[in-house]
């Protein structure tokens, strides 16, 4: 079996017949709010298009954390890459940016927490998190936040680690964790029968949006997660009443390796 793919999974008979990809995302359109919690987004990039809102989490000199309007866009490139992937799948979505990385900010857990809290509080239906923290002292609070999101109807999609690294929040069951497969099809995804990584999506040799309107070819789970964020947005555009639990179930039952998904 090619790396990143998973063995066939059987779906319960009645569900298999009713829950098809056509039902899940066929003809999906409509504006679902998708938030990229990352390094910012370069608005207007040809692969990204408009950005509906942009905030930045900043630490003041006294150590306090504040959320401000983001006027820098993306100084690193990572968030723009993720945003372009989401847009390529969910073309009608409304993209929002919460910058927690870049410009002297190297992924501090408390800033990620504040950014995620802001994104969830704004009520966005999908949050993409192609990053994680390894600090255990943030794990409990992140866990509570992920549960809050789950109960209020926000789907958090988080990139997983290739190795069993203790990092968060991708290991929590209230988020959808994503690793990479090697196929070129952006709508191929695999349900993993051996969690904690729950899905594998396209993450190898992906042409992504880059700073300055450019594109680059990238590989990594960071680029697999936004594929699932985009697919989740398609599901929610067509079926806005679904909860994160139901979206996850739909993704599993319509996965490329689930019997009869088509």
């Amino acid at each position, binding site marked *: 079996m090619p790396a990143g793919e998973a063995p066939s999974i059987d779906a319960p008979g009645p569900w298999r017949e009713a829950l098809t990809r056509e039902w899940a995302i066929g003809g999906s359109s409509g504006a679902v709010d998708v938030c990229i919690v990352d390094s910012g987004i370069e608005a207007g990039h040809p692969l990204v298009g408009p950005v509906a809102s942009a905030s930045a989490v900043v630490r003041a000199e006294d150590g306090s954390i504040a959320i401000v309007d983001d006027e820098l866009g993306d100084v*690193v490139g990572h968030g723009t890459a993720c945003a372009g992937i989401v847009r390529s799948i969910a073309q009608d979505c409304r993209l929002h940016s919460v910058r927690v990385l870049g410009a002297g900010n190297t992924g501090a857990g408390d800033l990620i927490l504040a950014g995620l809290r802001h994104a969830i509080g704004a009520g966005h239906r999908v949050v993409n998190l192609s990053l994680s923290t390894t600090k255990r002292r943030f794990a409990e609070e992140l866990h509570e936040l992920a549960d809050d999101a789950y109960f209020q109807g926000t789907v958090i999609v988080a990139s997983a680690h290739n190795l069993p690294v203790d990092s968060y929040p991708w290991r929590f069951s209230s988020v959808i964790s994503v690793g990479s497969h090697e196929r070129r099809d952006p709508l191929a995804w695999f349900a993993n029968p051996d969690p904690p990584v729950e899905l594998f999506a396209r993450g190898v040799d992906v042409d992504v949006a880059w700073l300055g309107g450019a594109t680059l070819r990238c590989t990594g789970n960071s680029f697999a997660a936004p594929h699932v964020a985009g697919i989740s947005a398609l599901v929610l555009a067509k079926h806005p009443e679904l909860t994160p639990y139901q979206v996850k179930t739909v993704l599993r039952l319509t996965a490329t390796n689930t019997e009869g998904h088509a």
Partner: protein
Amino acid sequence: MSDERAEAAAAGVLGGDEETFRALLQSIVDVARAIFGAQASSIFLYDEEADELVFEAVSGQGGDTLVGTRFPSSTGIAGFALVTRQPLVVDDLLKDPRFSRERAASTGYVPDSIVASPLLHDERVLGVLSVLDRASDRPFGVAELELLSRFSTQAAIGLDLLLRARRARSALAGDGSAALVARVASLLDEDDGGEGVALLEALERVLASRRA
């Protein structure tokens, strides 16, 4: 015993010596470069205080001059891996003139592709392992990403040992209790009669009884 020998002996007692760990890191980048047929491979230490990445070991292009060179940690592809705690591969970098200029200015070598993986150890991100311009006839997919992650685990352990050795050396050079213990430890080498050891054993018993 000279100060230098005392430090070296004590560093051995407290955590091993820096040169050995530096050699370990060098061997990791040498093997990473060979496995991926790459032009260069580097290990960067993340200097949290200065918020910079520092070249600690380099194999291939720039190996002679880059060790010790620093650059801002939150930019560049190595910075991507550091801040997101995720390994990644970026190709076609020469299409991005801004990146090329920045890279050329800092290292003198402009790669077209970079593989970068964070060096995670326990709760901390210690640095980044990078592989530049891997052989174009070797695809880099999920299995290679996993292999790189495993190398990164090894590199992170090596980097952790190097940092411990440096802290030990720094502590030994100071006036603190570690320096005292180290000086005593080094003198025990010359303690032929065993009186020093007997004295330390007595001290240990006294301290243990006070704690109890």
